């Protein structure tokens, strides 16, 4: 196996998980920063359209490191997803592939099912729900909850904060309900 092929391979959970965990002390040691991604969305609101909404009238420049962090995530996505793209289809449970075939989603050739996430689909009811409504729920829900998977489930749990455990349990409960009960209906549209 060549060097490039080795670098294109996806990482197992026991490599990726501890590395994600290490970003917690990394950011703390760099400057007392708490890992969290969703607050960058609030920053974008405060920076772009603060207009008289008290929630966005704060000194966002103090927390500007978050914008640098998410810009880095974008660049990291390019490095790993484009430069070192895994040429092989993602290996998922065959049961899931069978189920999704039933909804006409197709095979998992790519990270996302291209049949659902594309520009034409944005203007269909199904695609609108998947991309626009789904995204809205992510932004609205994380801010109401005060954090997302990184802020609550990684950072909060790492610091043994029980409210972050409550949030994480609700993330999972909401996800289980949506994926098993509602999403099949959406996918049949």
């Amino acid at each position, binding site marked *: 196996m060549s060097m490039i092929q080795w670098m294109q391979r996806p990482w197992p959970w026991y490599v990726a998980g501890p590395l994600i965990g290490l970003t917690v002390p990394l950011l703390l040691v760099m400057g007392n920063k708490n890992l969290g991604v*969703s607050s960058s969305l609030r920053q974008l609101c405060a920076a772009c359209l603060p207009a008289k909404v008290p929630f966005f009238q704060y000194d966002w420049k103090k927390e500007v490191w978050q914008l640098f962090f998410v810009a880095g995530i974008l660049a990291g996505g390019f490095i790993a997803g484009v430069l070192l793209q895994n040429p092989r289809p993602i290996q998922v449970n065959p049961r899931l592939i069978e189920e999704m075939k039933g909804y006409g989603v197709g095979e998992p050739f790519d990270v996302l099912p291209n049949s659902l996430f594309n520009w034409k689909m944005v203007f269909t009811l199904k695609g609108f729900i998947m991309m626009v409504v789904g995204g809205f729920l992510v*932004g*609205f829900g994380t801010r*109401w909850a005060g954090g997302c998977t990184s802020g609550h489930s990684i950072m909060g749990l790492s610091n043994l904060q029980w409210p972050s455990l409550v949030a994480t349990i609700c993330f999972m409960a909401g996800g289980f309900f949506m*994926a098993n009960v509602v999403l099949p209906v959406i996918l049949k549209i």
Partner: protein
Amino acid sequence: MIKYFLSGVLFGVILVKSEVVSWWRIQEMFRLESFHMYGVIGSAVVTGILSIWIIKKFRIRTWGGEPIVPKTVPFQKGQIFGGLLFGFGWAITGACPGPLFALIGAGFDVIVVTLLSAVAGTYVYGLLREKLPH
């Protein structure tokens, strides 16, 4: 600020390489069809707990010499209601906020729509904040 950019690069590479940015992996997780996501999140949390324990035990300071104070999280009802709503969005889009940025970087340009919609969701939360239970 370059150090935070570089930490983000690292974080983005891990998110893509571990496939946690994948809609398929998220669907597997919510159907209990694979251990992968549980392994990633679980081992990340264990590593994080150990790291913060070491930082506290040895009173490790920041590069600037300040004492390290990880954030505490007070309880509020939004963690339940907002948590459930985010869970719905996570299962539909297959992405939490970090992966949204990573996916756009990885060339899935249509995810810009999802990201902008997430910013809009955050904005609407800001507008309605006073009327929502906390």
